């Protein structure tokens, strides 16, 4: 059933790609990032690192800058100061289209509203970027896309349009679409927040499986139980800053900061 090589590159391939760089170097390194929309500062000095294969969950009240942080890591919004490095790319310094496309092979994002292309079938949604952005061979891409849809349990829905799929199914297609870029890091922005409670599970299972296979994941989530289970590290953000960080057992059971305690008492 599963087609691991389609998702995870073989170790030799990875090693080749990383040769020359320190293997213990974090794959994501965010240092003192300030970001503002106009005069409103949204991120006020955020630093975090993620190691290869690590799973980091970001929690915090709405408006605290969680989505903005992910979008900065993905190079979708520029930053005012600080630095963001993903693998070998200084994200905040990418200028040319070619450089930006190279980043797309490292990091891929899944959104709360799925954002599938509604005029394309599930399979076409997964195939589009590898064909048109990476210029990969169509048949090879198709094979991989089918394998990815199988992996998220939607092989039989390959010819359905997004409008014919449930929210949970659309979100799983969106995950497959991101994986088709063969990223090293996956970003998930409240991917279950718009779903019915019954379908939340199917999406979380997909993410859990990815994490187990060693995919590096950064998740913004309100699913505290899931965060506790899956995360290596949990970050609590508030007002554009990381207030507290630590392993889930510590952060959830013995939070040190008052604000963390107050937030957790509301959501738990």
């Amino acid at each position, binding site marked *: 059933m599963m087609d691991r090589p389609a998702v995870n590159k073989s170790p030799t391939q990875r090693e080749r790609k990383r040769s020359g760089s320190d293997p213990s170097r974090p794959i994501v390194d965010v240092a003192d990032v300030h970001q503002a929309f106009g005069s409103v500062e949204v991120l006020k000095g955020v630093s975090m690192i993620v190691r290869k294969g690590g799973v980091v969950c970001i929690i915090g009240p709405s408006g605290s800058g969680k989505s903005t942080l992910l*979008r900065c890591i*993905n190079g*979708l919004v520029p930053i005012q100061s600080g630095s963001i490095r993903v693998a070998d790319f200084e994200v905040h310094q990418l200028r040319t*289209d070619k450089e*930006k*496309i190279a980043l*797309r092979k490292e990091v*891929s*994002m899944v*959104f709360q*509203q799925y*954002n*599938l*292309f*509604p*005029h394309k079938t599930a399979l076409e949604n997964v195939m*589009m*970027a590898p064909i*048109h*952005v*990476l210029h990969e061979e169509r048949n090879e891409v198709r094979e991989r896309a089918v394998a990815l849809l199988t992996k998220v349990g939607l092989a039989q829905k390959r010819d*359905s*349009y*997004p*409008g*014919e*799929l449930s929210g949970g199914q659309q979100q799983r297609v*969106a995950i497959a*679409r*991101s994986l088709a*870029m063969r990223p090293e890091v996956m970003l998930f922005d409240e991917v279950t927040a718009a779903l019915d409670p019954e379908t939340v599970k199917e999406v979380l299972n997909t993410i859990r499986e990815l994490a187990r296979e060693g995919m590096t994941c950064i998740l913004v989530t309100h699913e505290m139980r899931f965060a506790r289970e899956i995360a290596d590290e949990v970050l609590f953000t508030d007002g554009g800053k990381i207030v507290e960080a630590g392993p889930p057992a510590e952060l959830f059971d013995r939070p040190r900061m008052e604000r963390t305690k107050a937030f957790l008492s509301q959501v738990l």
Partner: protein
Amino acid sequence: MQVVWDWFRWLYDTTGINLTIFYDAFDRTRFASGFWMTVKLSVICILLSVVIGIIGAGIQRSRYRIPRTVVYWYIQAFRNTPPLVQLYFFYFGLGALLKGVTGPMVTNVTWAIISLSFFAGAFNVEIFRSGIEAVPRTTLEAAESLGFSRLQTYLRIVFPLAFRISLPALNNNLVNLVKTTTLAYAIAVPEMLYVSSQIWSDELNVPVMMNVLLVAYFVLVGILVWIMHRWEKAIRVPGFGV
């Protein structure tokens, strides 16, 4: 065919319904040429107005202010004035002014095509623009995060979606355009209404010709609506929008 023509003559002799456009060879030719002129005006103006709409909507998304402002005032001018006045403006105003430059090459037919295309085009710009604006920003963000360039995003995602969203409003406007071609009568373009008026003043069959016109436009617009609906259906995406 002669049998049919004879039947219409018989119809006139027995009932007084005088359809000279069928049994009289001269009127038949006149009316047919008027009919084809209307079809020609309609098809050319439809195509040009759609092109104007797409280009105008594209310019409105441009980074530069001056072209945007030009398009804005073009739309205001053509939406807020009567199409007949526009036609007169082009033919008697601009046409007379440019006569020295263009010579007799630019005929009243050409001016009608230009005027009607810009008239319908102004509405098409607005129609396509609201179609583009209806594509959610988050969809564009997803495209960007997958590495699509600005141009790729437009060609592969924004345009196909915006076009489907725009089609019903576009239908309305194009139907309106076909009906508006009758205004070319005012600058003596020999389209269907114009030749009909010639026929009825020669034959004194005004009521009959009025009915002929009504039916002819009904059929013409009906064909357009049918084609557009077929097209709408052909590109319909299951589970998307309307």
